[in-house]
């Protein structure tokens, strides 16, 4: 639990640092996980990074870290450096997904493929209440039902899709109820309750490993920050609702729990914060030390076996830049 808390604090620290840097023009537009840490971390700790896979949206830094994706890559990516997209060989992860819901069919395919090849790995894909309206989600849950693919559809209902509130997104009472229509398991959980999220995810993982197929988890939480660093939520947010949710801050909740258990105090809290700040500073420093890629970055990794025309363009582009 302390480990989980640390991850929550770590990414809260990242979010604050990156937001500050973005204001100074030293970081790109990005979406913080603020308010949703328990949801992401609780899920993530139910996975085995050695054999399980992640198919993220873009707001789940804690899960990526736990799975082994370097923080500096995440930072580099949002600084606009293509090298940030690099996923280390041993990290079982799909790229961050910007095209909403597009990772979900892929996640389903990875899960199905693992099953076909006799692995007991499971796949978790994260997506938002907004993304849930895309056709890809339906097609994927349906395929997962038919193939009994070991995939967990982890829907973070954080109340908003940019400025669009949950009630404009769907008239369903709950998202989890959709599972029924695909013959998969569905469950709703308080996304600000670390232990509850962890438990429902563990159950889903166990079912998936046992060959019992997919689960849709609706994790009900709230985006207490802006949609991203370019967004101004004061234009649309319901302040009273926001205030309510800020009171339910998942980090405070865990800390209060630990305090009540007598295993947490201001000093340990501060020590953890300091440690996290140092770690984030280091990652940011590392990221900023990586030189921005040159024109070759346009051409690298597009193909295994590139067409001649693209290779000629590579040469021309590199020459032109050298000349300029």
């Amino acid at each position, binding site marked *: 639990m302390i480990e989980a808390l640390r991850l929550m604090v770590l990414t809260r620290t990242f979010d604050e640092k990156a937001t500050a840097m973005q204001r100074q023009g030293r970081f790109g*537009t990005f979406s913080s996980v603020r308010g949703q840490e328990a949801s992401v971390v609780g899920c993530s700790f139910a996975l085995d990074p050695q054999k399980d896979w992640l198919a993220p949206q873009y707001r789940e830094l804690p899960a990526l870290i736990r799975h082994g994706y370097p923080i500096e890559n995440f930072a580099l990516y949002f*600084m*606009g450096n293509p090298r940030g997209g690099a996923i280390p060989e041993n990290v079982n992860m799909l790229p961050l997904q910007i*095209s909403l819901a597009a990772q979900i069919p892929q996640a389903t395919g990875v899960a199905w493929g693992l099953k076909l090849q006799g692995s007991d790995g499971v796949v978790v894909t994260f997506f938002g209440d907004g993304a849930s309206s895309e*056709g890809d989600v339906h097609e994927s849950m349906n395929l997962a039902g038919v193939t009994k693919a070991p995939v967990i559809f982890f829907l973070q209902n954080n109340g908003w899709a940019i*400025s669009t509130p949950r009630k404009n997104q769907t008239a369903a009472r709950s998202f989890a109820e959709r599972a029924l229509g695909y013959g998969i398991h569905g469950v709703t959980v308080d996304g600000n309750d670390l232990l509850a999220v962890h438990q429902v995810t563990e159950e889903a993982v166990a079912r998936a490993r046992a060959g019992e197929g997919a689960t849709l988890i609706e994790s009900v939480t709230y985006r207490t920050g802006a949609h991203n660093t370019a967004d101004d939520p004061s234009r649309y947010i319901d302040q009273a609702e926001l205030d309510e949710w800020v009171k339910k801050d998942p980090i405070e909740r865990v800390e209060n729990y630990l305090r009540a258990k007598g295993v947490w105090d201001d000093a340990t809290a501060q020590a953890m914060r300091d440690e996290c700040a140092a770690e984030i500073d280091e990652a940011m420093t590392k990221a900023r030390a990586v030189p921005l890629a040159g*024109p070759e970055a346009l051409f690298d990794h597009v193909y295994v076996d590139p067409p001649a025309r693209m290779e000629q*363009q590579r040469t021309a582009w590199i020459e032109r830049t050298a000349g300029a």
Partner: protein
Amino acid sequence: MSEKTMIEAIRECMRQEMEADDKIVVIGEDVGKLGGVFRATDGLQAQFGDQRVVDMPLAEGVIIGSGIGLAISGLRPIIELQFLGFGHQAFHQIGQQVARLRFRSQGRHSLPLVIRSPYGGGVRTPELHSDAFEAYYTHTPGLKVVAPASAYDAKGLLAEAIAGDDPVLFLEPLKGYRLVKDEVPDERYRIPLGKLRVMREGTDVTLIAWSAASVMVNQAAEELAAQGISAEVLDLRSLTPLDIDGIAASVAKTGRVAVIQEAPLTGGFASEIIATIQEECFYSLQAPILRITAPDTPYPLGGVEDYFVPDAARVVAEVAALMSESA
């Protein structure tokens, strides 16, 4: 008449057209209270209510598809695609349904529908937000594709698109939204589709572009002038219909051409223009027609996008080299 940014001109156009015709509705992601992620629809929901300016669920297929239905029912929808890259999610609805409904129903259902979308790169957006995907749509019979470069044109062409009874994909240069600023009449007016704009007259070479690239190419033409090269700059304004006569007239005069596009080289709309020019003006051409485009690679992350999107320095250098080619 007053100076307006492109986004102001677009917003003013929608407001005035909606005031004039209560069949016009605006639908899209975040177009309501937020006024769109670029504020193109700012204030419209406050003025016209949430039944005429509607925040849609996040699903481009049904945003376009229900727009078709709204039009069939008698309304005149303006649909905002938050970014052109998300038109892919609705490609079956745009490419096969929007473009073909009138044909498939043998004239029964015309489709007075405008799809507006920010378009093009240069402002360091996240992945998949900056690609210049126009060539997919210009190869789609049944659609019209409009791509203004000035605020004046944006207002007049959008009004024309809204007034027309054919479906129009209206591409708004993301880079130009706030950067481009020019004199725009306060009243309503329309600019016909299919007439290019000569941004700058010249005699030595014809430079052809559209959308944000036109602005950039016009700057390049200034620099070329300083080098003694007189470039005529054509801003196409609409890609479908295409002003072939306007292009041919310029090429007949200059005999040399460069076509500049933001999209990757292979199969871009520049290729179409070149194929057309060599058909129409073969005997006037003094040198191969030049393509100045992005390479055949995906749009990269923002940090390196300046290598990807053609810029004025490149246009100047390549056009200068073209001038020394002799037939």
